[in-house]
């Protein structure tokens, strides 16, 4: 674990497992819920049949002002890493230490949550709110976002022509 004053995020031996077989995965899901409700502790640190480590003891420190690129082939766990860091998925092993971070905003699958029937301006409000922005924050930033999108008057049209996520 890093102790530098300007550390933003410290990830220590982070692991996440998934199951390759869908039906078995559903079954494990039911078993885990059942055990949890009965107060029986299950051990997430060992693999059951069909399971594999999507993230296996990943460690890194991220410092203020630093850009960290995670590069890997399709299915190597980049998105999973981001999801576990931003608490979308629970971790199975390891630690995540955020320092002085108000929130971690994952920006992947940009079209996710966009309603193709709404126009660009409406979707900016919707997507911005999903990313945790408040009404006031969005009002402040809406001109910048509109300009950044370079869509001009097309922002008044439905977003349907863009491919859905």
């Amino acid at each position, binding site marked *: 674990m890093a102790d530098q004053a300007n550390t933003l995020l410290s990830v220590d031996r982070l692991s996440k497992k*998934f199951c390759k077989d869908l039906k078995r995965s559903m079954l494990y899901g039911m078993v885990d819920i059942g055990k949890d409700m009965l107060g029986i502790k299950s051990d997430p640190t060992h693999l059951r049949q069909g399971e594999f480590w999507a993230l296996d003891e990943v460690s890194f420190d991220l410092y203020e002002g630093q850009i960290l690129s995670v590069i890997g082939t399709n299915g190597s766990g980049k998105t999973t890493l981001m999801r576990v860091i931003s608490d979308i998925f629970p971790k199975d092993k390891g630690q995540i230490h955020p320092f002085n971070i108000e929130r971690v905003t994952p920006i992947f699958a940009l079209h996710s949550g966009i309603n193709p*029937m709404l126009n660009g301006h409406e979707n900016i409000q*919707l997507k911005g709110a999903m990313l945790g922005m408040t009404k006031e924050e969005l009002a402040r930033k809406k001109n910048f976002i509109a300009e950044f999108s370079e869509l001009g008057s097309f922002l008044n049209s439905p977003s349907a022509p863009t491919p859905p996520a």
Partner: protein
Amino acid sequence: MLRTLRQTAINLQRYRYLSWQLVRSNLVGGYKKSFIGLGWMLILPLITVATWILLNGAGVVEPGETGIAYPAYVLLSTSIWGFFMEMYRTSSQVLTDRGRVVVMNSFPYEVLLMEKVIVHLINFSIPLALNIIVLLIFGVRFHWWSLLLFPVSLLPLLLFGLGIGMVVAVMRVIAVDICTLIDEGMKVLMFLTPVVYAPKIDQGWLGIFNQYNPLAYLISFSRELLINSDFYKTTAYFWCALFCFLFFYLTLRFYLNFSKRVLERVY
């Protein structure tokens, strides 16, 4: 207990703008392609009401002492049942409908429920207003206080529908077969609960079933309150209401604890 409820309140407060945006997206987005647009929200309940008026004209079987014209009785009863059932239906699909969005955009799961509840209340209030007009046409007279208390009396029913919905929402992601059975069971429940008949059958297995069926008391209480300005089995109603609050709390915890755990299995 208070910790879960307080955290839920904090999350809903923090993401209130998202709740509003999701409601708008749901209502406006749904009708945007249509020329009639939001007008459908009025037209669809009008069609239902017209059907009941037509049925009344055709003559229907008198199902026992209901106090008011049977079509009016059925219209109100099915509307109250619909309030419960629709809350169950929409909330039970919340993770299968919106799961992909929530695993891509990291926001609290309570917000999805809030959207469903608000849309449900809007969708229910229009037909309810129409139904009250129809009941007036059928000659039913209301006290002003029973009109005011009626929406409050529906709260336990809302929490009960939402509670069952939250459990099924989680299970629907991983246990499709069980949820299909539950969905079918909920349909059968309507015929077992005194919705289209008066709650006076107290013999046989149906009577025993309804003795322990909280829905029988919850629905009858709201219905009697509105049409007769009467408090139907008040003590039983309050026990059921208490049960619904506790049930809601437990199922909310279940939903918040396990939603992530099941969604990671499919997305």
